[in-house]
C-alpha cells in the first residue's frame, strides 16, 4: 500500500513538473483563494489584538463616566448625584466632588474629564490664514492638561506631553490627521470657527492617540475627521460653552482590581442619569466586536476560496480530459477505478498543499499591503503580525476545498473506459456515471458543510427554525443518495444476468433507512448545511444562466441547448423563465445578427466562445461575483455622495456658508458691507439671520378657523436678491425679490414653509396641514433684550422636505426686512464663490471678527469620508474576490488554449498569420469580459436605478454613475485580456507542425 502511495505522489509530482504552465495557473487559483482568506483573517487578528490591547488606556481609565443618554447630555443634568455630590457630576464642582468621593473610598484615585465646545459650529472648522488651508467638521477635546489622560501619556512627535504643550489658553495641539490636512507646522497661527481669539499650534500628536474605538464615538470620529486638544481654560474664547461642563469623566483607581465594585457603587448614585464603562465592560464589548469581525472575515474569505474552487474544478477537469488515454492505459494494466481516482486526488491534494503554502505567504503579504484599508475602517493604527492561526486555518481550508472541488473530476477519471486505449480518436471528456456523480456531489456538499461549519462556529445558531431546517435538508440529501445508489444497483443487476434480487432488496431498504437517518443526524450537527445548500443552488442557477447567456450571445443553435431546456421543467426554475426569455431572446437575436454581419475573425471568436460554454460559464461566474460586488458598492457610494452634494447646494442656496460667532444686526450690516465690497469675487450672496420666537396664532384659511398656539419656533430672515434655496414646491412659490421685500397691504410678510421637522423628518401640527394663504403670527424675540415683537406672515409657498441646512435648523424663511429692529440669534450668509476666489475671500473675511467661511463641499467631504470609511473594507473584500476571479480566468484561458492547440495549429497551417490568430483569441476573451461586465455591472446598475427611482421619484438622469459603470466594464475586459495574454501569446507563437504532430 505504502508503495502505491509513494507511486501516486511521485507520479503526481512528475506530472505537475512536466506540465509547468498548467500547474502554475492552477496553483495561482488556489493561492489566490487562500491568500484572500488568510489576509482577511490576519487583518481580523490584528484588529483583535488592538482591541484587546491595553484596556485601561483604551478606556481612558479604569472607569469612564458619562451621561446616560442623549437627553442627559451636559447641561441637562441639574440634580445631585448623591448628598455628597452637591452639583451635577458633569460640572466643574461635580468633578471636584467626585474626586473627593474617590479619595475617601478608593485612596490614590485620580479623576479627570473632557468637555466639548458647544454652540453652532463652535470649533468645528480650523483655518490657517498664512497657508490658506481649511478643514471642517473636526473634533475638539478640551481637557485638563495636567491630569489627562489618567493612563499613559500623550506625546507629540517632538516628545512633549500635553501638559508641556498646553501652557496658555491660546495653545493648541493638533492630531496628525488634522495637521496634515491643514499643512500645519508647530508655531502656526490657527483660527477656529466660533472663537474670538486665534490659537498657536504647539505640537502635533499621532492620530491614534485619540482615534479608533477607544473613547467610544468621539474617538471614532476624531480619527475620521481630525482632532485637536485645547486646555479647558480656552473655553473663555467660545461664547456658548460653560467652563467645566464635562462630557465624560475618567477615573484611575488607586487599586484597579476594585473596578467592578467601584462601578457598582457609582452607578448606584443616580441610575437614570449616568452610565459607566469599566475596563471589564470594554473587555466584553471588544470580545463581541472581535467575534463579529471574525465572522465577517470568515464568510468573505470563504467566498474568495469558493471562487478559487471553480478554478480547481476547471483545472482537474482539463487534467483528466487530457489524460484519458493515459488513464485507459493504466486501467488496461490493472489499475482499479478507485486507484485511478486516488491517483488524481493525490495530485489535487499536492496542488492544494503547494497552492496553500503560496497562498499563506501571499495572504500575509496582502494583509501587510491592505493594513491601511483596515486602519481606515477602524480609525486606528494596527500592528502587522504574520499570525499563525489564520495561516493554518486558510491552509487547511484551502487544501480541503481543493480536495473537495477536485474530487468530482477525479471521480470522472475513474470512470474512463479502458477500451478507449484502442480508439484514441474517440477520446472524449469522461463523464462520471451520472448516478455515482450525483451521490458524490451530495457527499461533497456534506463535506463542504463540515468545513464551513468549522469556520463559522455558532454563527448560524440564531437563524429561525435552524434546528428543523437543516435536519430536513439532511433527510432530503439522505433519501436522494439512497435512491441514486439503489437505482445504480438495479441497473447493474439488470446488466449482469442471473444474479439474485432478494438479498439486494433488503440491502436497499437498509440503505434507505441508514442514509435517511444519517442525513437527519448530519443536518442536526451541521447547521452550515443550510448555507452551503443555498450557495450550491445559487451557483447552480447562475451557472445555468451564464451558460445560456454565452449560448445566446454566440448566436448558438437550439439543438445545442434542448437537453438543458428540459431542466426548466423543474417547478423551482419557473420564476426564472420570464427573466430568461427577456434576457436571452434579445441577446440571442443580436448574437445571430452579429454572426451574419460581422467580419470572419469576429465570427470565429464567437464560435470559439460557443465551443467552450461550460468553461465560459465558470469564468463568468468568477468574474461576475467580484465585479458585481465591486460595482454595487462603488456606484452606490458615488450616487449617494453626488446626490448629497446636489441636495446640500440646493437647500443652502449656495456653495459656501459664512458663519459668524457674534449674532447682531451690526454683524448683519458689516457682513453685508464686506460681501458687497467683494462683489467681484462672488457670483451671488444672501445674508441670513435666524430669529427665535413663539408661533402664537395660526389661522387656517381653508378651514376658516383660528388656532391659538404657543409653540417655540425659529424662523430665518434672508436677503431675496439671490441664493434662494432651490426647493420643490408642492404649493405656491418661492419668495420673489420683486414683490416680497415689503409687507402686503394687510401687513402680512410672505413666508415659505417646509413641512417636515428637520430632525424627526415628520410633519407635525400645524405644518401637517399648511396651505398657501394660511396666516401665522410670530412673537419674535430679540436676542439682546428678550423683548418680543409680533410679526404676521402669510404662507406663499409650501415646499417638500426638511429645512435643515448648514446654518440653521428652521423650516421657515421670510424676507430679512420683516425683522427690522430685532436682534437675531444667529447670523450667516450663503454665497456662490468660484473655487479660485475662495482663498482671497477667506483672507478678506478676516476683517469681520468671528466669521468663518465653510464650503458646502466640505460637508460633502464629510459624507464622503463616512461613506469611504464604512465601504473601505467591503471594497477591499470585493477587490480580493475579483483578484481571485482574475486568477481563475487566467487559469480558464490557459486551459482552453491548451485544449485548442491543435485548432491553433490548423489555423496557422492554412495560412493565418500569428497576429491574426492572436487577435482572434484575444477578441474571444474580451467578448467574455464584455459579457461578464454587462452582467455584473448591469445587474448592479438596475438595482441602483430601482433604488434611485424609489428615493428620488424618477429624477434619475444625472444621478446614475454612467462613467463608473463604463469604467468597471472596461476593468472586466482588461482583466480578461490580461489573464489571457500570457497563455494566448505563447500558444499563437507555436510552430503548426509541433502542435499538429504531437497533439
Amino acid at each position: 500500500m505504502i508503495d502505491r502511495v509513494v507511486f501516486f505522489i511521485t507520479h503526481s509530482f512528475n506530472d505537475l513538473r512536466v506540465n509547468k504552465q498548467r500547474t502554475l495557473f492552477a496553483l495561482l487559483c488556489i493561492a489566490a483563494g487562500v491568500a484572500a482568506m488568510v489576509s482577511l483573517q490576519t487583518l481580523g487578528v490584528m484588529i483583535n489584538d488592538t482591541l484587546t490591547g491595553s484596556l485601561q488606556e483604551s478606556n481612558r481609565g479604569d472607569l469612564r463616566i458619562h451621561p446616560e443618554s442623549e437627553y442627559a447630555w451636559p447641561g441637562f443634568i441639574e440634580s445631585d448625584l448623591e448628598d455628597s455630590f452637591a452639583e451635577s457630576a458633569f460640572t466643574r464642582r461635580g468633578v471636584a466632588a467626585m474626586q473627593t468621593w474617590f479619595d475617601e473610598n478608593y485612596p490614590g484615585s485620580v479623576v479627570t474629564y473632557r468637555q466639548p465646545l458647544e454652540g453652532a459650529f463652535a470649533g468645528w472648522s480650523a483655518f490657517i490664514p498664512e497657508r490658506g488651508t481649511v478643514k471642517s467638521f473636526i473634533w475638539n477635546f478640551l481637557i485638563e492638561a495636567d491630569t489627562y489622560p489618567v493612563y499613559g501619556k500623550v506625546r507629540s512627535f517632538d516628545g512633549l506631553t500635553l501638559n508641556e504643550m498646553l501652557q496658555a489658553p491660546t495653545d493648541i495641539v493638533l492630531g496628525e490627521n488634522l495637521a496634515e490636512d491643514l499643512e500645519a507646522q508647530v508655531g502656526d497661527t490657527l483660527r477656529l470657527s466660533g472663537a474670538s481669539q486665534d490659537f498657536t499650534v504647539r505640537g502635533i500628536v499621532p492620530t491614534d492617540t485619540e482615534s479608533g474605538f477607544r473613547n467610544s464615538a468621539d474617538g471614532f470620529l476624531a480619527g475620521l475627521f481630525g482632532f485637536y486638544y485645547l486646555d479647558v481654560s480656552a473655553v473663555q474664547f467660545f461664547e456658548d460653552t460653560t467652563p467645566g461642563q464635562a462630557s465624560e469623566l475618567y477615573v484611575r483607581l488607586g487599586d484597579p482590581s476594585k473596578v467592578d465594585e467601584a462601578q457598582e457603587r457609582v452607578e448606584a448614585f443616580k441610575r437614570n442619569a449616568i452610565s459607566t464603562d469599566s475596563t471589564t465592560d470594554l473587555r466584553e464589548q471588544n470580545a463581541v466586536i472581535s467575534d463579529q469581525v471574525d465572522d465577517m472575515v470568515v464568510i468573505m474569505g470563504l467566498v474568495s476560496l469558493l471562487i478559487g474552487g471553480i478554478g480547481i474544478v476547471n483545472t482537474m477537469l482539463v487534467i483528466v480530459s487530457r489524460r484519458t488515454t493515459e488513464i485507459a492505459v493504466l486501467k488496461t494494466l490493472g489499475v482499479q477505478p478507485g486507484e485511478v481516482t486516488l491517483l488524481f486526488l493525490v495530485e489535487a491534494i499536492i496542488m492544494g498543499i503547494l497552492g496553500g503554502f503560496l497562498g499563506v505567504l501571499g495572504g500575509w503579504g496582502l494583509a501587510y499591503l491592505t493594513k491601511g484599508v483596515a486602519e481606515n475602517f477602524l480609525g486606528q493604527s494596527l500592528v502587522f503580525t504574520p499570525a499563525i492561526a489564520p495561516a493554518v486555518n486558510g491552509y487547511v481550508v484551502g487544501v480541503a476545498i481543493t480536495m473537495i472541488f477536485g474530487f468530482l473530476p477525479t471521480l470522472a477519471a475513474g470512470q474512463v473506459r479502458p477500451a478507449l486505449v484502442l480508439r484514441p480518436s474517440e477520446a472524449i471528456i469522461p463523464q462520471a456515471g451520472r448516478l455515482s456523480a450525483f451521490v458524490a456531489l451530495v457527499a461533497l456538499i456534506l463535506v463542504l458543510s463540515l468545513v464551513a461549519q468549522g469556520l463559522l462556529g455558532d454563527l448560524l445558531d440564531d437563524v429561525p427554525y435552524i434546528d428543523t431546517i437543516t435536519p430536513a435538508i439532511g433527510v432530503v440529501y439522505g433519501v436522494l443518495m439512497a435512491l441514486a445508489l439503489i437505482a445504480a444497483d438495479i441497473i447493474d443487476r439488470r446488466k449482469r444476468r442471473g444474479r439474485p434480487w432478494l438479498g439486494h432488496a433488503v440491502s436497499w431498504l437498509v440503505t434507505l433507512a441508514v442514509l435517511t437517518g444519517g442525513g437527519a443526524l448530519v443536518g442536526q450537527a451541521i447547521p452550515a448545511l443550510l448555507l452551503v445548500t443555498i450557495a450550491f443552488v445559487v451557483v447552480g442557477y447562475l451557472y445555468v444562466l451564464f451558460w445560456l447567456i454565452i449560448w445566446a450571445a454566440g448566436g448558438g443553435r437550439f439543438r445545442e441547448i434542448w437537453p438543458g431546456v428540459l431542466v426548466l421543467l423543474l417547478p423551482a426554475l419557473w420564476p426564472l423563465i420570464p427573466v430568461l426569455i427577456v434576457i436571452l431572446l434579445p441577446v440571442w437575436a443580436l448574437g445571430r445578427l452579429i454572426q451574419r454581419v460581422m467580419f470572419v475573425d469576429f465570427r470565429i471568436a464567437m464560435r470559439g466562445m460557443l465551443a467552450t460554454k461550460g468553461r465560459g460559464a465558470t469564468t463568468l461566474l468568477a468574474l461576475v461575483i467580484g465585479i458585481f460586488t465591486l460595482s454595487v458598492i462603488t456606484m452606490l457610494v458615488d450616487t449617494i455622495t453626488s446626490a448629497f452634494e446636489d441636495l446640500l447646494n440646493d437647500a443652502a442656496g449656495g456653495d459656501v456658508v459664512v458663519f459668524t460667532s457674534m449674532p447682531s444686526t451690526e454683524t448683519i450690516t458689516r457682513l453685508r458691507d464686506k460681501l458687497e465690497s467683494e462683489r467681484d469675487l462672488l457670483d451671488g450672496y444672501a445674508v441670513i439671520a435666524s430669529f427665535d420666537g413663539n408661533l402664537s396664532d395660526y389661522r387656517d384659511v381653508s378651514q376658516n378657523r383660528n388656532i391659538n398656539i404657543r409653540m417655540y419656533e425659529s424662523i430665518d430672515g434672508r436677503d431675496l436678491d439671490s441664493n434662494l434655496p432651490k426647493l420643490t414646491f408642492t404649493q405656491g412659490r418661492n419668495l420673489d425679490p420683486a414683490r416680497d421685500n415689503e409687507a402686503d397691504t394687510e401687513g402680512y410678510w410672505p413666508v415659505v414653509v417646509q413641512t417636515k421637522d428637520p430632525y424627526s423628518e415628520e410633519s407635525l401640527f400645524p405644518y401637517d396641514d399648511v396651505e398657501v394663504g394660511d396666516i401665522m403670527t410670530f412673537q419674535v424675540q430679540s436676542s439682546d433684550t428678550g423683548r418680543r415683537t409680533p410679526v404676521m406672515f402669510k404662507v406663499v409657498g409650501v415646499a417638500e422636505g426638511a429645512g435643515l441646512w448648514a446654518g440653521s435648523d428652521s423650516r421657515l424663511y421670510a424676507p430679512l426686512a420683516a425683522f427690522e429692529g430685532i436682534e437675531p440669534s444667529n447670523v450667516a450668509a450663503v454665497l456662490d464663490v468660484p473655487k479660485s476666489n475662495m482663498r482671497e475671500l477667506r483672507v478678506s473675511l478676516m476683517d469681520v471678527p468671528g466669521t468663518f467661511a465653510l464650503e458646502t463641499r466640505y460637508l460633502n467631504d464629510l459624507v464622503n469620508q463616512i461613506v469611504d470609511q464604512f465601504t473601505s473594507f467591503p471594497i477591499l473584500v470585493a477587490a480580493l474576490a475579483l483578484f481571485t476571479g482574475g486568477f481563475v480566468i487566467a487559469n480558464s484561458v490557459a486551459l482552453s488554449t491548451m485544449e485548442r492547440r491543435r485548432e491553433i495549429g490548423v489555423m496557422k497551417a492554412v495560412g493565418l498569420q500569428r497576429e491574426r490568430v492572436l487577435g482572434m483569441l484575444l477578441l474571444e476573451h474580451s467578448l467574455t469580459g464584455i459579457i461578464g461586465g454587462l452582467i455584473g455591472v448591469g445587474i448592479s446598475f438596475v438595482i441602483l436605478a430601482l433604488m434611485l427611482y424609489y428615493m428620488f421619484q424618477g429624477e434619475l438622469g444625472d444621478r446614475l454613475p454612467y462613467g463608473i459603470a463604463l469604467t468597471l466594464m472596461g476593468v472586466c475586459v482588461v482583466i480578461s485580456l490580461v489573464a489571457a495574454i500570457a497563455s494566448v501569446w505563447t500558444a499563437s507563437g507555436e510552430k503548426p507542425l509541433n502542435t499538429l504532430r504531437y497533439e
Partner: protein
Amino acid sequence: MSTNGQYVVQTVDVSKDLALGQVMVHALRGVTLNVKAGEFLGVIGPSGSGKSTLLGLIGGLDTPTTGQVFIDGEDITNLTERELTRIRNEKIGFVFQFFNLVPTLTALQNVALPIRFARHRKFDPTGRAMELLTLLEVDDRANHRPNQLSGGQQQRVAIARALANNPPLLMCDEPTGNLDTVSGALVMQALHDVNEEMGTTIIMVTHDMDIASQAHRVISLVDGRIADDIDPRSAAQMTAMNLLREERGLE
C-alpha cells in the same frame, strides 16, 4: 459451455454492436475462436473489419453484446469492472501501436507499474522490471522517459511492461505499425523470443501480411466475421491468402 484446458483464449459466438452517433454498427458477428497455450496468432483484416474490437473483447477491455469469452478457462463475459481489471493485470499483457507509455514515468517505472498494482504481488517491481528491460535489450535506457527513447525502444519497453506480471496472454495491437522496418524487425524478434522462451501466448493484430506471416497461425477478419484461418508456414495456404489479399485490397 465447458472449456478445454489447452486453450488460453476461447470466444463462443461473440458479437459486438457499437453505436456510432445515430447508427448502430455490427462490429463483430458470431466470432468463435480458440487459441492454444503458447500459440502465436496473427489477426489481419481491412479497416473496420473488427480486429480492434475482437482484441478489446479478448483483452477484457470491453464486454460482448452476445456470446462468451473465456481467458485461461475463466468466463469473463459477466465479470464486474473490478474483476476484469484484475484479469487484465494478472493474465493479459498489452502492446499498442502508439506504445502508450506513461509519459511522466521512466522506462523502469513504466515496466514496474503493473507489478505495483497487482493484487497478489509475485515479483519485486524494480528487480523484475530491470530483468525484463535487460531481456529486451533496453536496460541502458531504464532511467529515461518515453520522450527520450526511439520508437523501437519505446515499443520494447512496452513489451517489457506487458510481460511484467508474467501473463499467459500477450495482446498486440499493430506493434510495428508506428515503426521503421529495422525497429519493426527488432520488435518482432523480441515477440518471438518471448513466445518461444517464456511460452507466452500472443495474439497480434496487424495490417501487414509480412508481419502476420511470422505468426504460427493467421486469421483474417472481414465485416466482423472470420473469413480465413490458415497456417502461414503452409505454402499453399499462403498463396491462397495472398490472392485473397490482392482481391480485397490489403497491403
